[in-house]
């Protein structure tokens, strides 16, 4: 075969690709606040394909609902919001790439997006480098506070610590930790172990399984053998389905050994099958059943837009809040320009579906009410405990003596 002459094939392919790349227009060049004429562009960046699409598509839906509601109410500063939706494809470098595209090509005023810690860590340098804003809507492992990220999901002291307080108040003294092998579970378990050491709780075991793992019989056997009072579960995604299905046959019941999950919300309960997880506990800041006037209209609007069989969940609500909080900050600043919005954001409050939530000016997290719920046989979650009002965010756990050795 005479390879040499095939350079022409290369050329034939490369040339149009290169030309097309160059010809893609770059709209809106010139403005830095996403505003052009009577429009403000905002980016929505979640995984619409790949393994994370399961969860992230619902958050995108909630964010688009918030945009739609703002537009129906006359827009922001009299300008219509135009969402630019991009796909992160469950792939962290793609998140960074798309974030860069939204910032430099679409010149959006803010980006709402991300789910996994890995996707946030991949996007963080892009936003800091470009001095652009990311609103991140999912509970996470804390120990971070970027000036160009707003965190509208819970940090550890608004979800994990209250869950531990709750378990301790129920007299649970022996705990078993189960998690998927990635950053959030490992950090969460580090916090749990520090807490346990200070409060006289015994940690009987700490087990991690690879993401996407589906064989849990050995792990369940280890749990039965250790006889804990409670299991703290930081498994992610599909693994939860396998874990709860296999736990059910083992004789461990919610009555004697409740499992507390921090990554299982209404949407995941459906895939697990409510009968497999009923009676076990979850820890979040919001449930579809949370009783506030704002939630009533949120659930109603969501079902009207996306179908009566849809459920709402904590990350969806946090995404919805992110858009509304940003809009409030823009109104206060009088412009969508990034630095002005950051300056104006401190103290911005919203009567959200989860109740009152306020942006903390220093760390750019929000104050949130912690809630423990029990999964019901119908797949809904019933609140059994809530904190006294919103808890101030403390991503580095500075306010907790037992956590002094953590960061």
């Amino acid at each position: 075969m005479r390879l040499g002459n095939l350079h022409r094939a290369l050329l034939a392919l490369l040339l149009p690709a290169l030309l097309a790349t160059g010809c893609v227009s770059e709209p809106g060049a010139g403005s830095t606040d996403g505003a052009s004429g009577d429009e403000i562009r905002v980016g929505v960046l979640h995984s619409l394909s790949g393994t994370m699409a399961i969860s992230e598509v619902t958050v995108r839906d909630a964010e688009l609902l918030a945009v739609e509601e703002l537009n129906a109410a006359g827009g922001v500063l009299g300008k219509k919001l135009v969402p630019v939706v991009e796909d992160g494809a469950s792939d962290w470098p793609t998140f960074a790439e798309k974030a860069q595209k939204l910032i430099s090509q679409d010149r959006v005023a803010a980006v709402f997006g991300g789910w996994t810690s890995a996707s946030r860590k991949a996007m963080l340098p892009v936003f800091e480098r470009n001095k652009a804003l990311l609103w991140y809507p999912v509970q996470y492992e804390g120990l971070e506070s970027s000036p160009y990220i707003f965190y509208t999901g819970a940090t550890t002291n608004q979800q994990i610590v209250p869950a531990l307080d709750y378990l301790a108040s129920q007299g649970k003294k022996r705990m078993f930790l189960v998690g998927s092998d990635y950053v959030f579970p490992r950090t969460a378990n580090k916090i749990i172990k520090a807490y346990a050491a200070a409060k006289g709780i015994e940690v009987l075991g700490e087990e991690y399984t690879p993401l996407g793992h589906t064989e849990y019989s050995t792990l369940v056997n280890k749990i039965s053998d250790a006889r804990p009072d409670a299991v703290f579960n930081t498994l992610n995604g599909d693994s939860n389905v396998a874990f709860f299905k296999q736990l059910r046959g083992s004789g461990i019941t919610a009555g004697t050994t409740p499992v507390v999950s921090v990554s299982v919300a209404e949407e995941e309960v459906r895939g697990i099958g409510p009968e497999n997880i009923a009676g076990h506990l979850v820890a979040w800041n919001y449930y579809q059943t949370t009783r506030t006037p704002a939630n009533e209209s949120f659930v109603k609007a969501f079902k009207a837009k996306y179908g009566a069989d849809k459920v709402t969940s904590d990350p969806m609500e946090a995404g919805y809040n992110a858009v509304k909080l940003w809009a409030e900050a823009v109104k206060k600043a009088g412009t969508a320009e990034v630095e002005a919005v950051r300056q104006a954001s401190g103290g911005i409050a919203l009567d959200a579906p989860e109740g009152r939530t306020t942006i903390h000016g220093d760390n750019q997290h929000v104050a949130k009410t912690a809630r423990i719920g029990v999964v019901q046989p119908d797949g809904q979650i019933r609140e059994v405990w809530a904190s006294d009002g919103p808890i101030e965010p403390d991503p580095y756990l500075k306010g907790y003596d037992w956590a002094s050795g953590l960061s």
Partner: protein
Amino acid sequence: MSGRISLVLCVVLLAVAPLVLSPFRLGLLAKYLCFAIVAVGIALAWGRGGMLTLGQGVFFGLGGYAMGMHLKLREAGPAGLPDFMVWSGVEELPALWKPSANPVFALAAVVVLPGLVAFLLGLLVFRQRVRGAYFAILSQALAAAFVILLVGRQGLTGGTNGLTNFSRFFALDLTDPGGRRVVYAITAAALVLTYLAVKLVVRSRFGALLVAVRDHEDRVRFLGYDPALVKTITFAASAVVAGLAGALFVPVVGIISPALLGVVPSLELLVGVALGGRFSLAGAVAGAIAVNYAKTLFSEDFPEGWLYLQGGLFVLVLVFAPRGLAGVVEAARDRFRRRPREEVAG
């Protein structure tokens, strides 16, 4: 002769790109070029050597991490620790990381580490005459195991997050478009040099031997050659190329993580090679660039369609043009020149 002219034209095109593309698009092109470099190695191992490697992501990753570790240490905080170690609760730099502080060691590791791993694995596998589909499956399992290992040692490797947040590439400032243009130029140069080097190998006596091993291993053995060694060396060479691409990927994209090295990304590396034509180095390069460009295009406008297109491309190319686009071009040219086509074994 026309081949040389085309090569020159391609080089000119690569040189002109920074002048016409926005920094964002130039960054994307640089990323495609990284994948094109891997494609050159795959075309060598698969097209010439008949070794379908489904674990090329492993070597891409080894190169990427070797480079990433060094860059991370250059930017480390006051305690000399990379950022992820701080939040993973690691207090002292692990011994495995210490040599990476040395730039010469790091640059050597980028190519030596993947090459060495591939060489040892090749020795084990090819000596036992494991080949064809067996080899493909083993290399796939290797990719799966490698990812689990990387993810499970978070304090050492950054876990699923991988290594991110690089602001400098040696003396270059990656936050500055000028610095990124230089990174692009380095990547483009690396592609051209890799291409020429592999081309030399293919045209050499060794290249002929390799094709002979692919087409009839036993006959080559009877002639007194050691086919296992020929395959091992080729496999290692393709791993070195992948490692180089991985190392360049770090400054180009600014991240290296297990998500890039697993079973699926390793298979995706093959799509472009199959499309362009595995028997042709130039075809593989063009295919890799075209496929990754199509991926960007699709995910911007039609994200749900990408899997259909990717899957469909594989099926269509294999059914209708198993030699890829290069094969189509060649057949057309042969018809034009009325020259009989050479037989190629799959």
